[in-house]
């Protein structure tokens, strides 16, 4: 026990030292204070953002956007992944396009999307949809391909229709893989949301707040936004993994 407290104190040493250096740097003239905002000003910035509800407004916009994109991209991904796993023709047709487009780093696609759909909400949503789409497709098709052959044979014996085969047989059997895909999609989708908002900076959104604060030289707002983004990423990850655990409880992963 004592050892634990001691170790915890050791872990705190570095952040405290960093804080001290930060505070010291902020007192080295006005030029430094521009970047190294004094700690009390940071606290004031947080209070102001929280009180005015501005932070909440931006966060809510980003969260809704991410969830929407996740829903669309995830459903599309499951559909396309199923198609690719079930039909060799579809796999041969979609596969090459999918795998080559997937090589482009997501943020590299942003200028193209900007030209095609403008830089409004549609473009930001599309970035998230694409981000959610990739991992869902990959994991769904992989999971469905691994469904045991004997299950399929049983399905044939019971003369299930395609819809029944999908709902009763493939979907439950591939569920762990799909859930893994959606969990990845969520993590990637949140980052894509922030990235998209950084690059299409108009309108509400935590990424837009971040980039506007950077251009306005508001280090406090930048720091708070970064922390909020990281915190939300962790929270969402935790929640999704919890939900995933509940969903595939008692199932062996394939």
């Amino acid at each position, binding site marked *: 026990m004592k050892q634990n407290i001691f*170790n*915890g104190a*050791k*872990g705190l*040493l*570095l*952040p405290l030292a*960093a804080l001290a250096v930060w505070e010291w740097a902020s007192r080295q003239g006005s030029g430094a204070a521009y*970047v190294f905002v004094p700690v009390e000003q940071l606290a004031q910035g947080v209070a102001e953002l929280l009180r005015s509800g501005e932070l909440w407004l931006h966060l809510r916009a980003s969260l809704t956007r991410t969830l929407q994109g996740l829903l669309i991209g995830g459903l599309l991904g499951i559909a396309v992944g199923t198609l690719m796993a*079930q*039909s*060799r*023709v*579809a796999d*041969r*047709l*979609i*596969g*090459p*396009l999918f795998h*080559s*487009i997937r*090589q*482009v*780093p997501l*943020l*590299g*696609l*942003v*200028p*193209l999307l*900007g*030209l*095609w759909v403008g830089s409004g909400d549609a473009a930001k949503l599309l970035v998230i949809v694409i981000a959610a789409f990739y991992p869902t497709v990959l994991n769904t098709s992989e999971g469905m391909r691994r469904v045991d*052959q004997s299950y*399929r*044979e049983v399905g*044939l*014996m019971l*003369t299930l*229709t*395609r819809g*029944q085969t999908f709902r009763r047989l493939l979907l439950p059997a591939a569920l762990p893989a799909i859930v893994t895909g959606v969990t990845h999609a969520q993590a990637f989708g949140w*980052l894509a949301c*922030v*990235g998209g908002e*950084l*690059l299409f900076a108009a309108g509400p959104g935590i*990424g837009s707040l971040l*980039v506007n*604060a*950077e251009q306005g030289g508001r*280090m406090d707002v*930048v*720091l708070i*936004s*970064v922390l909020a*983004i*990281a915190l939300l*990423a962790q929270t969402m990850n935790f929640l999704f993994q919890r939900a995933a655990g509940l969903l595939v409880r008692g199932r062996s992963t394939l």
Partner: protein
Amino acid sequence: MSTNSVIATQPRSPQPSHSPSSQQSLPLPPQPMPPQPLPLPQPQPPQQQSLPLPAPAPLPPSPQQQSHLPSQQSLPLPAPALLPPLPQQSLQQVHPLPLPLPLPQHVGQPATAPGRAPSARAGLVARWLAWRWSGWTSPLLLLALWSAATSLGWAPEQILVSPLQVLHTTWELIESGELRQHLEISVLRLAGGFAIGAVAGIGFGLLLGLSPGLRAYTAPTFNVLRQLPSVALIPLFILLFGIGESFKIFIVVKATFFIVALAVHDAVAGLSERYIEVARVYGFTRWQIVRRVVLPGIVPATLTGVRIALSRSWMVLVGAELLAADSGLGQMMEMARQMFRLDIVMVGVVLTGGIGYALDRGLRWLEAHLMRWQRGDRENT
């Protein structure tokens, strides 16, 4: 109806394998047949009729089977070609053994299931699937569609430029040396930041894995900083370092360092304690343990971490260049976007994708190359 019902009967024949007492059986070629002459064209019609009209059939389907009837029509089986002739005699034989089903052959390819003219279409599809270049079908189709769309003027030029125009622009960019310049600076930034980040990450990960003391001091800070997404840090780094070169290098260093350090740390922590014990028994010094036990042991995980870090930092660098830069592939695309030069943007997209792919492929190759001994080892045992 006629073909469909034949299709539908197919999966039902194995049904009796659930109940050994049942009289049905699948056609088994090696069965000792009674020497009666088999009227080959005949046996199928009675079978077909037995489905809709259960009464006169030798084996009336159970009510449960009947309930599936409507659904059977859509069952995706390319049957007639695969249906072996069903001699009626074989149906009467008792065959209690689990039957070698002919099903698995066509289970995997339901989508090739033909509707009307099965054999011809199925043959064509199968031949297309077996064709070496069939993977190029959809990209070429897309290219054709793209060319058609631009030459017929289906979309305004801001939204779609012709493939020829893109090629032409590529050539122009190469000629003027503009492309090379952007490419060079981007790759240099990536290489510099990545080298620093990877070396520092490997070093720090090793220390973190080997020294409990250092871990106690730095692990909490490391774990918190690790959670900060690199993309979100771009504006912060711009404020801290300005929009010069250093900010882009640092963002790549950040993206690389944490992934690599974590991978190395996990690899060291995952090393079997026994290796180290054996080394101690041999009287290895601490340095020898690190060099001859730990370092070789963490190579696979480190390489995987490095590969992931490389593709991640490439994405972050492109993002950073899009946001704030005076040169580089990302800046080229962003400028082109602001000037509505779709062709240049497309060149940039293809290039970033190509570079990302090449880097990933290269490291995969390196991984396989360095891991040869392991594969050989596995083959020997």
